[in-house]
């Protein structure tokens, strides 16, 4: 660029930024190292799952597979053994979805409504409910497990699909309700007043005005719930019952089986299959997730 034809602001002062500075090199080096650090386990898992046991026994974990071999994936999906059952992780995959979908929908629907009630309607005692929610969001959930087991077994929900769905819904409510409450509180109160004058009822205002505005919040809530419920282990192992064991529990049973040869390629493949859902959620919604957080998810 010559002085005769300035394409930038001619009054700009200070040195022209050089395209490659030492700081920038250091920054990129740090980012690359960090990325490799987190990617390495994934890479190892992926290549190991494609190897044959014969190659794995030779010992080099970073060596690329001799040939693309999906046998371990097929076995992990359909016929890997957990104790006496040799049905692979597919049963757990289906179970996890059966738990995930209703729990996600139910918890988000209830949380959005709770947040709406706590922000716009301020019913008598809503501050108390809000305080309880706050506390609920921060108590470690292990504390609740034993009492809940007793309560659930008394009412016959222990070890059933509705039982585990209810558990996930209940545990999701405090944080999600806070999320929605904070979002709704940030909206102008005049919108709510205008809708009331317009003749909309409590449900109509929620359904037609507030919920459409809360779309970014719903996306954030879906991400939180899908990853959280899918990755859950302890609630599943305690409350779901043998017939509804989620995938994480089944994966553990396969990987930690004490009998027979440890099939590392099958274990890696089973783990990869289990991780696919949260991975997909993050990849597909990363942009939304950031936007949702920026829109008030973490605002006090």
């Amino acid at each position, binding site marked *: 660029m010559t002085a005769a034809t300035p394409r930038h602001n001619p009054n700009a002062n200070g040195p022209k930024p050089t395209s490659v500075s030492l700081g920038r090199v250091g920054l990129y080096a740090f980012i690359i190292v960090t990325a490799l650090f987190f990617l390495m386990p994934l890479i190892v898992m992926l290549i190991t799952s494609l190897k044959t046991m014969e190659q794995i026994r030779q010992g080099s974990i970073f060596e690329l597979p001799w040939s693309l071999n999906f046998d371990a994936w097929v076995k992990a999906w359909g016929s890997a053994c957990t104790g006496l059952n040799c049905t692979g992780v597919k049963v757990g995959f289906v179970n996890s979805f059966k738990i995930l979908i209703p729990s996600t929908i139910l918890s988000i629907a209830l949380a959005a409504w709770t947040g709406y009630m706590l922000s716009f309607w301020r019913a008598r005692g809503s501050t108390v409910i809000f305080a309880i929610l706050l506390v609920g969001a921060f108590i470690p959930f292990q504390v609740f497990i034993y009492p809940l087991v007793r309560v659930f077994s008394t009412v016959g929900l222990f070890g059933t699909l509705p039982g585990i769905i209810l558990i996930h819904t209940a545990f999701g409510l405090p944080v999600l309700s806070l999320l929605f409450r904070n979002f709704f509180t940030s909206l*102008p109160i*005049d*919108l709510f*007043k*205008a*809708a*009331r*004058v*317009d*003749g*909309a*009822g409590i449900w*109509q205002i929620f359904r*037609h*005005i507030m919920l*459409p*505005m809360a779309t970014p919040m719903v996306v954030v809530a879906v991400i939180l719930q899908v990853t959280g419920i899918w990755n859950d282990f302890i609630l599943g192992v305690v409350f779901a019952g043998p017939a509804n064991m989620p995938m994480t529990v089944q994966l553990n049973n396969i990987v930690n089986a004490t009998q027979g040869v440890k099939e590392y390629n099958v274990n890696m493949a089973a783990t990869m299959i289990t991780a696919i859902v949260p991975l997909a959620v993050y990849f597909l919604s990363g942009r939304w997730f950031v936007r949702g957080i920026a829109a008030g998810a973490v605002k006090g």
Partner: protein
Amino acid sequence: MAVVQAKNVSVAFGAVTVIEALNLDIAEGEFIVLLGASGCGKSTLLNCIAGLQEIAEGEIWIGADNVTWAEPKDRGVGMVFQSYALYPRMTVRENLSFGLRMSKMPKAEIEARVKRAVEILQIGALLDRRPSELSGGQRQRVAIGRALVRDVDVFLFDEPLSNLDAKLRTELRVEIKKLHQDLGSTMIYVTHDQIEAMTLADRIAVMNKGVIQQFAAPKDVYMRPANRFVAGFVGSPSMNFLKAKVADGASLEVATPDGRRFPLQGYATAAPWRVGQEIEIGIRPEHWVVGTAPSGAVPVEATITVVEHTGPEALLWARVGDTTISVKVADDSGYEEGQALRVHFLPAQASVFDLATGERL
């Protein structure tokens, strides 16, 4: 079109009383402006009439109905907000028809009403746009339309023009005035802008600290303020006040601190005067007469401190004793800082207030 009445209304936020035992009687088809500084309770009162604010005591009547406990939608009121409050995820058409759709009105009827409102407000070109694609003035038109389609008896405006720039504000003000003339509906309009209040209102209710100070026609509020607060609040620059004492109640003779005595000939008293009573004489900046004094005028000696040119006229700030007065003069040449200035006022145009109570005398 309906009579609106507030009977003995009190509102409290926790321990703080915002409105106390307020009475307001609005006739059918009247345009009423609630005027006051922020925090005076004017918006709260409007919310009470709309049904958005619960009242602690008293009653609200619209037409022949006691609506104190009625839902906003059952009161026959439409409301326009300062922030427009358009539903952001809906088009203009959906915004206009929202209330009607919620009340399950037949589609044909909804369309007819939207069409009529659109014609009145000339927003036909905007129907399929979202609020974010509209300018401030267009948004406020749509907001007015939302009240219009519902065919309400009472329009409530909560500082509708405060977010607009000066030019648009004037335009929309005229449109609102015209809308009132065309529809003949009762309108209640909250503002802190005096020009809006003076130009729009049939009657102005000046409010301070939750109490209505004066409820009268704009001209009366301006010319015969009921108390010191109204006198000081309405008018820009503010009314000038000179302290004095009553020397003789019958002949309206007063004595000023500098020892002068003169009668306020032609002043119409609102209450009997006591000898020795401390008073304030209020004179509007444009009511000073400079130069030849008309008969009965009272002269005041002043010293110019600042000259402000505003274009068509000039504003002189001058000292009288230890107070500063403002004088509006049409001809702005020949005035200088430090110059002595003799001004006169006609008692008939002045207002006299009791110093202690602030009431008009």
